[in-house]
């Protein structure tokens, strides 16, 4: 997978953001606390619920087929206190996992 690749969420796959959880997780980040374990977005497939954490949820929302993975990194960089290389690795790894699950498809 490359930063130039572009993906979109699989049509018809039900998901929902837990908005309060997202707000609380960003507040925790700003306060310097670790919010990586908090589920902020739910994906439901075949009756099974999977929680995505804050970074995963933000990546998921941006996987709408209009931007490449690299552009997702660009959008998220100001919101997460992390080096670009590290964020790029995390986002690429996460999108690759989504692709393996069949939750995103090439746009």
């Amino acid at each position: 997978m490359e930063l130039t690749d572009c993906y979109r969420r699989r049509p018809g796959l039900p998901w929902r953001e837990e908005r309060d959880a997202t707000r609380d997780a960003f507040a925790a980040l700003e306060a310097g606390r670790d919010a990586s374990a908090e589920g902020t977005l739910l994906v439901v497939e075949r009756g099974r619920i999977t929680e995505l954490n804050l970074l995963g949820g933000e990546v998921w929302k941006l996987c709408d087929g209009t931007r490449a993975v690299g552009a997702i990194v660009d959008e998220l960089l100001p919101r997460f206190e992390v080096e670009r290389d590290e964020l790029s690795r995390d986002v690429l790894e996460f999108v690759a996992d989504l692709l393996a699950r069949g939750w995103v498809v090439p746009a």
Partner: protein
Amino acid sequence: MSAPGKIYSAPLLVNWSLNYSCNFSCEHCYSRFEKAEELPAGQVLEAGRRLAEAGVLFANFGGGEPLLRRDLLAVSKELAALGLSLSLNSNGWLLDEAAAAGLRDAGFVSVGLSLDSHRPEVHDRFRNRPGSFDRVVAAAGHLVRAGIKLTISTVVCRINYQDLAPLLELAKRLGAAQVYLHNFKCSGKGMEHRFELDLEPLEWRDFYREALAFAANPAYPEISFDDPILASLGVRDAEHGIPGSTCGKISLHLRPNGDLTPCGFIPLVLGNILRDDLPTLWRESPVLESMRHKTAKGKCTACGHYAACLGGCTARAFAVSGDLNAPDPHCWENPCG
């Protein structure tokens, strides 16, 4: 990614009884004695808007026989456009080729058909409707040909618990993607016929052991159980990651008049979808609070499985004891406790 273990901001699923009217009178029916005014189409849509706004993802129509509602397809099309993922359960009597095409075009993702035995005479007798077996088999064909995901719903009870293999074979032949094995509930007519139809706890255990073996066999359609007492057989959080009953944790039930209850089998009204704010009810209902924070009672107090099963099915416990915290009457653990 992590497994969930908390209460979300809203239900994910609403089991929606659009109507209690039915063209059948089945021996186990939980709703045959229920009476409630049906919302007109406009109010059904308003209820759907409120569900979608709250973040509900799935609406599953039951009842009653949903196909008796003449406005079902028109209303469903608009509900699907709101983003709700729609399914329904039907006895199949009215589900001909045109109805199947209509359901597909209205946006139904899957349709469940009730099938209680592979033997036509047993199914027909249980459903008190001669010819119903043939009609449901025909309905399955119409759904599959229309391209709708077919699921089979079977209420496990004394008439069929020893016939799981031929039932699964039939489901497979019909093209079912999934078989829901619903545990018998002593509500409505089910309560009337409880002693004829319900199994003894050890019979439930043996049934589930057999069913779990079938579930592990990829030659059969996927089997869905959704029975929290499976925790004592080492099946924990099998499908959704929620310990204990899912009612009031990820799902709610809507009656035809818009009243909300924790599930179709617990007749405790939390409020009304048209009069009350759903997220507030979901957060603050004392009934839901009780169901989410159960207290072990009776034999459950000394049971090592309690943390995973939380007393089993809350609806069954409530139906026979009037106590949400009572042990599930189907539970085979510590029978003398």
